[in-house]
């Protein structure tokens, strides 16, 4: 525990996303819109040893609480992640991400010939199967089961 404190300092206000699937931290940052040019204070720890899942990534974002849609996106690439909302150094809420049953406007269909990938006025929609994670496009029935991060909008 002490060792972890040294790696990533406690934050006063903001969100700690813990138990991220090792290797996905940078994708989580992408989902949060954090890039080299944003001013947010962000700490990232990668491949931290973790009893439960072997190793994990952690992202701490200061002065920000996540939107539901952002949590949905994170759940796709890091299904075991936990969200800790911090105010005044205290965890005031902690929950595990949960895959929603439906995803609207979150993922782009991988079928280039799908009607949702045209100039038609439609938003992508997927039905979610949780175990294993499979997304089925409601328009063309195409199933995305691998490399979901690459298809995030």
């Amino acid at each position: 525990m002490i060792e972890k404190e040294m790696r990533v300092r406690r934050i006063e206000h903001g969100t700690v996303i813990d138990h991220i699937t090792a290797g996905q931290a940078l994708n989580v940052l992408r989902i949060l819109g954090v890039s080299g040019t944003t001013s947010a204070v962000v700490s990232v720890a990668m491949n931290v040893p973790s009893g439960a899942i072997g190793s994990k990534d952690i992202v701490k974002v200061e002065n920000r609480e996540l939107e539901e849609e952002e949590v949905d996106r994170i759940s796709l690439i890091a299904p075991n992640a936990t969200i800790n909302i911090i105010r005044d150094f205290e965890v005031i809420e902690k929950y595990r991400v949960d895959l929603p049953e439906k995803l609207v406007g979150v993922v782009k269909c991988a079928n280039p010939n799908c009607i949702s990938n045209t100039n038609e006025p439609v938003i992508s929609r997927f039905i979610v199967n949780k175990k294993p994670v499979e997304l089925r496009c409601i328009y063309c029935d195409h199933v995305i089961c691998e490399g979901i991060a690459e298809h995030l909008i």
Partner: protein
Amino acid sequence: MLHHIISMKDFSRDEIGIILNRAKEFEPVARGKRSNLLSGKILATLFYEPSTRTRLSFETAMKRLGGEVIDLGSIESSSIVKGENLADTIRVIGNYADSIVLRHPREGAARMASEFSKVPIINAGDGAGHHPTQTLLDLYTIMRESSLSGLRIALVGDLKYGRTVHSLAYALSLYHADVTLVSPAQLKMPEVIKKDLKKQGAVVRETASIEDVVEDVDVLYVTRIQKERFPDPAEYQKVAGVYRITEELLKKARDNLIIMHPLPRVDEIDPAVDRTKFARYFEQSFYGVPVRMALLAMAMEAV
């Protein structure tokens, strides 16, 4: 609740049964008996891709039920060439017609159209996706010429790209059919679809040899290997003509075997087979009319 007809997956076995039984009632009308069931109704046919039998059988079905048909004419002379999107086209045509039959090159087009339409959409093929009216007429043919219970069927040819076999295989799984998939390695049915079938409880086997199955099945469902699906002509040449149904092959067939084909055929079925007791593909194309009558009636008659 509008009766859109988009995908076989929207239908339960009971609902399919209702449609097939309704089609049977329409058979005399399809053969020429007068009907005014849909008199005063207008069907719009929107074909963004070429089609002869699907379009003509819909028109025939509508006209024999006393209704009228309007169509888009050629795409080149329509508003589509000006860049109008499908959603707008559907909203406009829905103001003119009581139902719309749509064929479109993109997968999911019919589902999307149904979200924008105030009249029922009937999917007549969306890219490599669904073609439910073909599947329903295939099931009807099996019901009339063979039997849907305890069915043993071989699907032969292009099982990778052929949209009709994907929808049909799914529907057969609702009947717990024993399905053998016969295709060259390059044209095997996609894993995702096979997984869906097994989930439904269908028995699914695969083989590359048609000789293996011909003596064991009740139905041989033959499809064309489509040249346009192959980027490399040499690849096409390798698989073209691997399955050719001949009288010789049929010597081993069961007595009550039937042969089906969605047509057009190229050389998958030897013309000599047309004269055998096994051939049913022309009956199959006729059955498209009563089945589409049932669907049109479902979509448009006052309930």
